[in-house]
């Protein structure tokens, strides 16, 4: 799940992890930017570098979460491939690990995607996948193609050996139909522009851009167009307000005094909706399924998150498309 910062990437990733866990499945929600956004969303303690269950979905599914720490991942990595032993900790003290993960932004990305792919491929004793789906709250749209494509570069740099093999294995997962990149956006100029650019970059890199999720969509108002086109129908609306019990429709009465400000709000809304329509059309022209999640005017609390998950599940079911992977049973 990618998206411009602030569009709801973390929220939608979490909602998708919940949706995909529906019906007794198990999903893993992965965070890679060290923000502890998942913990905040689920109102729990900061996540350690360790998979742990954070939520139960409707229908008995389980959502696990993991905040990947690049430095720890590098130590693990070096341990696996080079058997550094206790020298690893000394290197950390010296600032060498920090150095290594900062020096090449690419290295961080290799470690993060590597860890997530490991979770994707992990099997239990009976050779079944441990997780039915892994949802990553990935870096923002502006960096996503580079982030996911980094292993290609690494595989090119390290021509042989374990690093090469690992990088290739990661790329195989990422480019396979098992992976789907979803882009979260708002119906605002900048996020829409970034989404369109991001889709182009993903495609150029051979990565599977799968769908656009438009978040925080305002509901349309019936009779919306009239607000912009027709001259004011102040009297009629005043009467309607009066009928609804909001006071008298007499000239200067309470119902009538409500008309002007409410019409103004309606006009603003209509103007916004009109702008959104243009942006929505630009998104539709990208040739990807576009799904929409409504704006929760009370903000997203846990209840809201479950609501969004339900919404996502419904939309994926209706369209018959896959949220992740080839498994048609997924929402």
């Amino acid at each position, binding site marked *: 799940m990618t998206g411009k910062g602030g569009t709801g990437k973390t929220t939608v990733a979490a909602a998708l992890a919940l949706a995909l866990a529906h019906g007794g499945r198990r999903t893993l929600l992965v965070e890679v930017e060290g923000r502890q956004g998942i913990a905040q969303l689920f109102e729990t303690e900061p996540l350690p570098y360790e998979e742990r269950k954070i939520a139960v979905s409707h229908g008995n599914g389980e959502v696990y979460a993991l905040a990947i720490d690049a430095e720890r991942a590098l130590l693990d990595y070096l341990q696996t491939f080079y058997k*550094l032993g206790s020298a690893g900790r000394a290197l950390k003290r010296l600032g060498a690990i920090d150095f290594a993960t*900062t*020096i090449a932004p690419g290295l961080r990305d290799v470690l993060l995607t590597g860890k997530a792919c490991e979770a994707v491929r992990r099997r239990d004793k009976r050779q079944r996948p441990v997780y039915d789906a892994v949802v990553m709250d990935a870096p923002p749209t502006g960096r996503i193609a580079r982030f996911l494509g980094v292993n290609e570069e690494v595989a090119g740099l390290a021509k042989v050996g374990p690093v090469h093999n690992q990088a290739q294995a990661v790329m195989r997962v990422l480019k396979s139909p098992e992976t789907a990149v979803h882009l979260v956006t708002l119906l605002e100029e900048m996020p829409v522009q970034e989404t369109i650019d991001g889709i182009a970059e993903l495609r150029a890199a051979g990565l599977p851009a799968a769908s656009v999720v438009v978040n925080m969509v305002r509901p349309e108002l019936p009779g919306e167009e009239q607000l912009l086109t027709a001259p004011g129908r102040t009297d009629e609306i005043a009467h*309607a307000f009066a009928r609804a019990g909001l006071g*008298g429709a007499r000239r200067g009465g309470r119902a009538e005094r409500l008309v002007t400000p409410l019409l103004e709000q*309606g006009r603003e809304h209509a103007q916004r909706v009109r702008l959104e329509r243009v942006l929505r059309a630009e998104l539709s022209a990208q040739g990807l399924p576009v799904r929409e999640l409504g704006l929760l*005017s009370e903000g997203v609390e846990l209840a809201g998150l479950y609501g969004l998950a339900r919404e996502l599940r419904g939309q994926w079911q209706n369209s018959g498309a896959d949220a992740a992977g080839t498994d048609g049973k997924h929402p």
Partner: protein
Amino acid sequence: MATPLDADALDIDPLLDDPATRIVVCCGSGGVGKTTTAAALGVRAAERGRRTVVLTIDPARRLAQSMGLSELDNTPREVPGIDKAAGGELHAMMLDMKRTFDEIVETHADTDRAKAILENPFYQSLSTGFAGTQEYMAMEKLGQLRAGDEWDLIVVDTPPSRSALDFLDAPGRLGSFLDGKFIKLMMAPARVGGRAGMKVVNLGMAGLSLFTGALNKLLGAGLLRDVQTFIAAMDTMFGGFRTRADATYRLLQAPGTAFLVVAAPERDALREAAYFVERLAADRMPLAGLVLNRVHGSEAAGLSAERALAAAENLEDGGIVDREGGKVLDRDAPSAGPAAPEDGSPAVENPGHPRSVTTLGRAEKTETTTETAERTIAERTAAERTIPDVRSATDRTSTDGSTRDDGHGDAQGGEGGRDGEESRDSLHESRDGREDSAEVSVLAAGLLRLHADRMRLLARERRTRDRFMALHPDVPLAEVAALPGDVHDLDGLRAIGERLADQSRSAGPR
């Protein structure tokens, strides 16, 4: 109404007009409106007579175009369309971080050395991809603009990082990283000695070379060598990044600098703003105030969300379905006489005048109304089901609506008695006129629902703001209303500036 907790209003114009104000920094988390605010302040300061330059970073495309910025460009260009009557000017630029970095190298190294650095692959990835380079270069550029002393006022936008603190932290981080122990160690593996050397000895040279070997494999063999060459060249060139970052940092502490923390009235943005405010205080940096951007207001704040919803339901439900028969009435059905309140359940939609309302509702029902209204209700239900208390709140309103209906707790309270008569009058008019189309009911109900949404949003924004103000009562505050469209021309920027300056009419009733 006064700002709660007696927070001071932030006075923008005196700040912009004061010749002692030389730098205004707009910071905050991503997407809150930093760039917009910076540009709006620039326009306002220029039109009030100051020779102003705005350093924007990553502006929305159309905003950049409206300021005459078509590409990244490190030279300020004059912004066309500014009213210069007061003697000011506005120039703007869009930070080119790579170009700024290149310029540092070119100014400080002779031609051959500069060429070697610019071509160094590590330099190339550092100058384009390193997290923090943008912040570092923004500071660097600010330092340059200030040193030139060419401007009355420099307004600085900050990079679109997630955390507001990145602007303050990243340059130092980059500096200390490049000046770090490990880098030094790698640059001079032969001269091992001193404390760092001891650690390496303890660690065992085998461990270190294993590590660098591993890194070479991971990063490509040449990269570490490139880093070493690069650092060596930079180090002798201008005495370390750290020193440089520290110098700009001190500039930010100097009098004449004013920080404006921009935030949206949302939990996350205000949490970031709070961190930033605390950090500024800790570092003795001058905070001018908080700009709360994209605040919603309403000119009809006296009508509560609950009442608006109840009224909307009245319009939508009112007589749509013949409750006895459970069927939709035929649109040609003659207007029924005054209906008796339904079976056992009094028509509470409009306590006080239940019968009239029912009558009217029946008179105007059509298939269209039914369909539209039902669809609306279904949509709304979908939107609202995640908000557990909506339905019950509405129900509550219906049952105790008689008290609310008098206008108690409303801005217009006190005329409840007269309203009763007015309503009856208007009802008679309507019955005669019949011009009240179903369409109008739908529209009116829509407006009421929209208003209810607005009022809920407003309440949430207010709660969030108040929480912040309770923790930081001394921070001056300016609110800027959310404009219905994006801000992408000079008029839009002027409108924002206007709202910033005039806090009495900022975002409507608070």
